C-alpha cells in the first residue's frame, strides 16, 4: 500500500508517532479450495440432457481492512464453507418447435468471522493496545464473531415455443427462497435475542416475450412483459443495536419493446424502450461478510425502477469480419441501489431517490485468420435528479454526478493463436489486453480545489495458453498489470500490482 501512515523510526509503543510511507499488506492471506462435479446423460427419450451439478468449497481469508482502507486490521479472519447442487433438465420436442429447460438447485453457506483482538494496528504491522473495547471492525465491547448461515433454494425454467417460423414465445420463471440466520457469541446475551430471528427473502419472477420477424427478416421485434414479486423479513440493525424483524414486500410489472431493423446489407439499427425492475438481492438486504466488505442489513430497501431507452447503429463490412457499433442510452431511475460507506462499521446499500443517466458506447471488432481484435469505450453520466424530503442530502447535491462510479472507460483485447507450430501439435493462444478507467471523484462534485479522486488507471495484461489437441489438457500463464501500474477500486482501495497466475486443466473424458 502506498501513501499510508506507518510508524516513524523513533516511535515507541507509548508514543506512536507516524509518517507517510509504503507498507506491505500483512493480514491478507487467502486460501481457497473448490471441488466440482458434473454428472449427466444425453439423448434420452424424455430428455436431451439431464445434468447434476455439485460443488463444495472452503475459503479461509484474513481481512486487512473494510470497504475503505483508512485503518488496517491486523487479526480479523473468516472461514467460509459452501455446498451447492443443481439439477438441470433440457428437452426439445420432436418437431423442434418447443424447447424447455428447468433447473432446480440448493445452496448452503456458513461463514464464521472472528474479530476479537484488543489491538489497534498500523499499516506496517505495528500495534498498540486498544483503548476501549475489543475487535477492529467496529466499536464493540467484546469484539464480534458473527456466524452467518444462508440456505437458498431456486427453480428456474425457460420455455421457448415457435408459434410460427417467424414468431417465438419465450416464457421464463425464477423462484428463489433465501433463509438467513446470524448468531454472534461475542455479543452480550441481551443483544443475541434479535439476531437469532430467522430471516427470509422470497422472490418470484415471470417473464413473457414474443420475438417476431417481418419483411424478410429485415425487422425483428421483441416485446416483453415481466412480473416481479418480493417478500422479505429482515432484522433491522442500527448503530450496533439489533432491532425488530421488518416485513417488506413489493409487486412490480416491467415491460418493453426492442426493434432491430436491418437498413441495408451493411447497416443495422436497434431501438428499444424498457421499464425495468431490479430487486435487491439477499446480500443487499440481509447484509453479510463477503467480497472484502462488511455490509450492514437494510430491511427497507426498495426495488430499483428504471425507464430505459437504448438506440444503436451497427455497421459491418462485406466480408463480415469488421464490425463497428455505436450506441446511446438513457436511464431515468427511481430508488437506485447504491452502496454507501459507514465509517468504522462497514457499508450499507441504500436507495437514491431519483437519478438520470445518459451515455454513449462505441465498439469495434475485427477478425482475420488467427487474429482477433476488439475495442470498446463507454462514457456515461449518472446525476442525482431529486432527493426525498427525508433525505439529509443538501439540495445542492441535485444535478451532481454520483460519486464512486467510473464514467469513462475503455478496453482493448487482441487475441492471436499459433495453430501450426513445427515443434508441437498443440495450439498456443496469446492475449494482450488493456483496461483504461478515467479518474473519477469519490465524493460529490463541488468544483473545489483538490477534490479526492481515484486516479486514472491504464492496466496492461498479457496471457498465454498452451492447449493440447482436442483440448485434452491446457496450461495457462497470465500476468495481470504487466507494467505494475497503480490500480484502485471504486472506493479508492489500492489493488494488487503486477501479479502472475498459472492454471492447468485436465479433461478426464478426453484423455
Amino acid at each position, binding site marked *: 500500500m502506498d501513501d499510508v501512515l506507518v510508524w516513524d523510526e523513533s516511535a515507541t509503543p507509548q508514543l506512536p508517532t507516524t509518517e507517510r510511507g509504503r507498507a506491505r499488506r500483512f493480514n491478507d492471506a487467502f486460501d481457497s479450495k473448490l471441488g466440482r462435479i458434473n454428472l449427466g446423460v444425453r439423448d434420452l427419450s424424455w430428455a436431451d440432457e439431464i445434468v447434476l451439478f455439485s460443488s463444495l468449497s472452503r475459503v479461509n481469508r484474513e481481512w486487512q481492512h473494510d470497504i475503505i482502507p483508512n485503518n488496517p486490521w491486523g487479526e480479523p479472519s473468516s472461514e467460509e464453507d459452501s455446498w451447492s447442487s443443481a439439477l438441470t433438465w433440457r428437452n426439445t420436442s420432436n418437431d423442434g418447435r418447443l424447447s424447455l429447460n428447468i433447473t432446480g438447485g440448493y445452496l448452503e453457506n456458513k461463514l464464521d468471522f472472528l474479530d476479537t483482538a484488543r489491538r489497534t494496528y498500523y499499516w506496517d504491522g505495528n500495534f498498540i493496545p486498544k483503548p476501549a473495547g475489543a475487535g477492529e471492525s467496529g466499536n464493540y465491547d467484546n469484539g464480534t464473531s458473527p456466524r452467518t448461515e444462508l440456505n437458498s433454494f431456486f427453480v428456474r425454467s425457460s420455455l421457448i415455443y415457435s408459434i410460427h417460423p417467424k414468431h417465438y414465445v419465450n416464457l421464463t420463471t425464477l423462484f428463489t427462497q433465501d433463509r438467513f440466520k446470524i448468531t454472534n457469541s461475542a455479543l452480550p446475551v441481551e443483544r443475541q435475542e434479535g439476531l437469532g430471528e430467522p430471516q427470509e427473502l422470497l422472490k418470484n419472477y415471470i417473464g413473457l416475450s414474443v420475438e417476431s420477424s417481418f419483411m424478410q427478416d429485415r425487422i425483428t421485434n421483441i416485446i416483453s412483459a415481466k412480473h416481479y414479486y418480493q417478500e422479505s423479513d429482515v432484522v433491522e440493525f442500527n448503530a450496533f443495536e439489533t432491532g425488530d424483524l421488518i416485513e417488506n414486500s413489493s409487486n412490480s410489472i416491467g415491460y418493453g419493446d426492442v426493434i432491430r431493423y436491418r437498413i441495408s446489407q451493411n447497416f443495422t439499427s436497434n431501438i428499444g424502450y424498457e421499464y425495468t425492475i431490479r430487486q435487491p438481492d439477499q446480500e443487499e438486504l440481509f447484509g453479510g461478510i463477503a467480497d472484502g466488505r462488511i455490509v450492514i442489513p437494510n430491511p427497507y430497501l426498495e426495488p430499483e425502477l428504471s425507464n430505459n431507452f437504448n438506440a444503436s447503429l451497427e455497421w459491418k463490412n462485406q466480408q463480415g469480419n469488421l464490425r463497428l457499433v455505436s450506441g446511446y442510452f438513457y436511464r431515468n431511475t427511481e430508488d437506485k441501489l447504491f452502496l454507501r460507506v459507514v*465509517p468504522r462499521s462497514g457499508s450499507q446499500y441504500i436507495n437514491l431517490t431519483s437519478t438520470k443517466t445518459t451515455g454513449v458506447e462505441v465498439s469495434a471488432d475485427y477478425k482475420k485468420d488467427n487474429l482477433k481484435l476488439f475495442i470498446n469505450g463507454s462514457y456515461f453520466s449518472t446525476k442525482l435528479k431529486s432527493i426525498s424530503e427525508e433525505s439529509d442530502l443538501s439540495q445542492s447535491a441535485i444535478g451532481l454526478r454520483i460519486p464512486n462510479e467510473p464514467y469513462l472507460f475503455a478496453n482493448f483485447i487482441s487475441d492471436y493463436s499459433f495453430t501450426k507450430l513445427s515443434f508441437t501439435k498443440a495450439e498456443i493462444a496469446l492475449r494482450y489486453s488493456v483496461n483504461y478507467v478515467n479518474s473519477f471523484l469519490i465524493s460529490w462534485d463541488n468544483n473545489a480545489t483538490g477534490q479526492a479522486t481515484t486516479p486514472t488507471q491504464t492496466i496492461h495484461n498479457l496471457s498465454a495458453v498452451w492447449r493440447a489437441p482436442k483440448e485434452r489438457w491446457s496450461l495457462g500463464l497470465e500476468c495481470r498489470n504487466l507494467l505494475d501500474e497503480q490500480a484502485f477500486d471504486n472506493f479508492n482501495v489500492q489493488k494488487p500490482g503486477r501479479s502472475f497466475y498459472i492454471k492447468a486443466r485436465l479433461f478426464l473424458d478426453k484423455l
Partner: protein
Amino acid sequence: MKKPHYFIKRYVFSWCLLLSFVLFLSCSDDDPDTAIEPEPAEPSQFAMVTSTLNSDGQTRAFFLQRVSVDSTGTIDNSGATELSPATSAMIHAFNGSIFFSDYAIGQMVKWSVDGSNNVSNQAEMSLVELGFQGNTAFRDENSAFVGGLSTSIVIFNPTTMTKTGTIDFSEFSKVGESTDFPMPGGTYQAESVTEIIIRDNYLFASLMPLTNIESFQPAEIGCSIIVVDLNQVDLNAVGNADAVVKRIYDERGSSTGAWGSGGGNSFMQMDENNDIYVLSHNFWANPFLRPSFNPACILRIANGETDFDEDYYFDVEAISGGTGNGVMNFEYYGNGKFLAAVQDPSAADPDNPFSYFVDPIFQWWSFDLYDQSASIVTEEYSRGALAAVSYFDEDSGYIPFESSGENFVMKVDLTTLDAVQHIETVGLPALYDLE
C-alpha cells in the same frame, strides 16, 4: 519680434505653473478641513469550512476557504479546497492554522490558508491510540493536548505536528469500577476525554464515562473533570502521572465537553475574569435520558480554584425554552454573554430516535452568565447540534445555520440581537478565527 513674444509667453507660462503648484500645495497640506481620509480598515476574515453530506447520510465532504465578513450573496465551494471527501471530523483554529481532527479514522491534519486563499496540507499525525479523539486544547506554539477513549492525554507540538509526551490519569480513572447508574450492577467500561481547557498552569479535562461504548450509555449522572498541574508536566515525557491533581465531580450537571460534536465547538469557556464555565448538555440534549439527568445547566470553576463553585448554578433550560428543552453550544462573545441553540422537543421526528441531535429543531438564544437571563435571537429552526461554530467580530456575530435544504451564515447584531441571513453557503458552514 518673435523672440520677445516667445519670452513673454514662456514667462507667463512659468508663473502660471508656479502658481498652480502653490495652489496645489495649499489645498493638500495646510487646510485641515480637506485632509485625506485614512485608509479604511480591511474587513476581518475568517476561515469557513463547509461540509456537504454524502449519499451515505453520515459522512461529509469538507471544504476550506477564507471569507471576508463583508461578503454577501452565495459562496459556493468552487473557491475552496477539499479537506476530506468523506469522513466525520471536528476542526480547531490556532495561530492562523486549521487543525482538521478526523475522528472517524483517528487522524489530525494541519492546514494553512494564506491571504490569497491558497490552502495547503502542512503535516499530519495519527491518533488511533485514542479511539475517538476529543477536542484539542492549544497552550502555545509548542504544546497542545488532546484526549479520547483512553486514560492518557496526548501532548503534541502543533507547529511540527509531532507527539512529544502523554499525561497518564489512569490512577484517577474509574474504568473497571462498578456503578449503579443507569442500573445497579454496571461497570465503567470506558471514559473519554471530550474536551480540555487550560487556565494558567492548570489543565481541566472533561470526561464522558460510559458503561457501554456501543450504545454510548452514560456511567454516571454528574459532571467529572480531571485536573492536571501543568507545572508538573514534562512535555517531552511519557506518563506524567504525578502531574494529575484530582478528579472533581458535580451532580448538579451531567457530563460536559463536545467530543467532536458540532464541528469542533466548545462547551467549556473562560470569561474575562478567568472564571471557567462549563455547559452540562445532558449527552447532547438527549431526551431519552430524562428524567434521570437534571436540566442542562452551567457550572463554574472560579478563578484560582480547581473545584466546582457550589455557589454558582445556571439552569439554562428554565430561563429559555423551559425545562425539558435541551441547550446545545456555548458560543461565548464576551462580558459574560454567549449564544446557544435551544431544543424544541415538540418539533422532533418521533420516528427517528436521533432526531433530537440531527434535525432542525433548535432556535438560537443569547444568554448572560452573570445575571442569568436569556433572549431569543431567532425563532427559525436550525440543526443547532451540528451547525455551531461561530465567529465574532466587534458588535456582530456570524452564526452557522442549517435547516432542511438550506445553509447560510446568519449575522447577529450582538447589541440588539437582530438577526439576518448574511451569506448563503453550499453545505453546512462552520467559522473559525484565523487571528
